């Protein structure tokens, strides 16, 4: 266990001075305390404090293995932290299963899109609508109880599909969509759930530049409507383009956070850090392998 702390790079303190992580926000929608998740001795996520400001677009960046997706999984209930607590709008989420967290207004998407292949695009959308009467088994056969609501759901689904430009695919099975269309569908579907906070895990991964532009436009529009957005991104151009706030993660920790310009101003810190981080990880791996050999 003692070796774990040494994995942390020396540059952290310089970075801390430049822009201390865990900054307090004026009106945080999400507050996280002492979040820790270990995978067999590796501290995949180890965050003392993180707040997300309501109504902003926050980017989470960092090298591969920095713990960004693990953090997403923890916050949305898909994985359980070893310790830690977090609150959405003041409501503690610790121990809640993922569907309960989604119902409270934090809806996520996945790095690899999860379209429901053998359902139509329209059905994909309809599944996301919240608290539908007809989704209760005891009412499923009583059509007259849910038919009016179903019509409202379908109208809203079509509206959203139109907005995302895939309404012409509404009656096709989602498995026939192209990769980019699936990204659009997944984002539209997340919206269908009426979230307050949307967590997008690499929304532009594997998407061509034109579609990336359109996805970013959708994110901006959403944000303009008051939805808070947190997204993981590798493309720095995208990050600079749309985010109000940038959180830099590395080796499970928050290295620094700040406005995009602030983070850019510390570019040499990040560059140096990314270089150092590789070395530190390599060293840690070598150490671990050495220990295995000894043990």
């Amino acid at each position, binding site marked *: 266990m003692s070796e774990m702390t040494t994995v942390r790079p020396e540059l952290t303190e310089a970075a801390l001075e430049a822009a201390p992580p865990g900054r307090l926000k004026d009106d945080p929608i999400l507050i996280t305390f002492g979040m820790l998740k270990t995978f067999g001795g590796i501290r995949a996520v180890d965050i003392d404090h993180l707040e997300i400001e309501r109504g902003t677009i926050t980017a989470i960046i960092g090298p591969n293995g920095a713990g960004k997706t693990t953090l997403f999984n923890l916050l949305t209930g898909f994985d359980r932290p070893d310790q830690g607590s977090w609150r959405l709008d003041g409501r503690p989420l610790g121990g809640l299963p993922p*569907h309960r967290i989604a119902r409270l207004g934090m*809806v996520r998407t*996945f790095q690899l899109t*999860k379209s429901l292949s053998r359902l139509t695009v329209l059905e994909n959308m309809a599944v996301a609508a919240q608290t539908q009467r*007809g989704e209760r088994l005891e009412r499923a*056969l009583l059509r007259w109880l*849910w038919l009016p609501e179903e019509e409202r759901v379908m109208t809203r689904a079509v509206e959203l599909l139109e907005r995302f430009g895939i309404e012409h695919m509404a009656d096709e099975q989602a498995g026939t969509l192209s990769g980019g269309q699936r990204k659009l569908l997944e984002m539209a579907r*997340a919206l269908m759930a009426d979230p307050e906070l949307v967590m997008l895990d690499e929304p532009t991964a594997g998407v061509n530049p034109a579609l990336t532009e359109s996805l970013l436009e959708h994110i901006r529009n959403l944000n303009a409507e008051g939805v808070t957005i947190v997204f993981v991104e590798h493309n720095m151009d995208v990050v600079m383009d749309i985010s109000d706030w940038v959180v830099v993660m590395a080796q499970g920790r928050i290295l620094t956070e700040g406005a995009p310009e602030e983070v850019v101003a510390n570019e040499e810190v990040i560059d140096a850090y990314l270089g150092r981080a590789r070395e530190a990880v390599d060293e840690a791996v070598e150490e671990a392998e050495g220990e295995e050999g000894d043990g």
Partner: protein
Amino acid sequence: MEFDVIFGNAARAGLGPQAAIFALAAIGLNLHFGYAGLLNFGQVGFMMLGAYGTAIMVATWGGSLWLGIPFGLGLCVAFALALGIPTLRLRSDYFAITTIAAAEILRLLIRSSPATDITGGPFGLQAIANSFYDLNFLPDGRFGIGTFSYSSNQLWVMIVAWVLVVLCSALVLGLIKSPWGRVVRAIREDEDAVLSLGKNTVAYKLQALAIGGVIGGLAGVIDVLQQSGVGSENFEPQVTFFAWAALILGGLATTVGPVVGAVLFWFLREGVESFIRELSAENWLPNVLADFLDGAEGAISVVLMGIGLVGLMALRPQGIFGRRRNLHLGT
């Protein structure tokens, strides 16, 4: 060669109570796997509970048959919960293994000697369905022509069984066309995606398991009514796989697939068996082959059915009514 005899036998099996029993079992499996994506290899366990619940209420406890049937179906719901609550949170392969083991454990328990006082152990239970046949309004005698004929009581069971098949098919269709069914089919495609949209997927899977299990339990009830008795030898694991064969033959995730599949399965199985018997009787087979086949017509028929299914999977993997395109849409 008496083709009318062969065809008569085949048709009698294809429309008879056995086919209806397997149609019900396959309708339940279709809800489990075709729609909810639950790999249930223990459907026979549900059939067994439906059958034994009914039989124990009547033969052991002296209760009414009309109390026994809901009791048996209630046991099916309990079995679904006992099976599903610990395993449905895990990956689907764990659930699949648990179902086949649970059904076999149940059968061995039922036929064990300590259970003899309740279940009749290896002897089973008899004289259960009298009050069911009291309701038979059909005149005595045989109905049909040639080998395609049924006794009055057989026909009575068949009418009830096929009405249940239609009702259960309609029930599953109605459920699947509802928003509830949409969530269930979505879970089949990707459970994490559905969780992320705020649906309690485990609850939906449990509900689907229980409903499909109760439909399987109805198959067991029909079996008890048909034989007016019950024995554990009727509930060996192959019963589950015959139901699977019927379902895949007809087509997964279709309304008529499991029913047509079950009819065809029994029609072909009995037809092939009769055909082999006729071949032997007419001395059309070389002696070596005829001696080999003698008394094994049923087994050979199952072997040929298996080969036929392999061929079907090669030529039409989606079954008779399935949509081929669905096979290529990876989840």
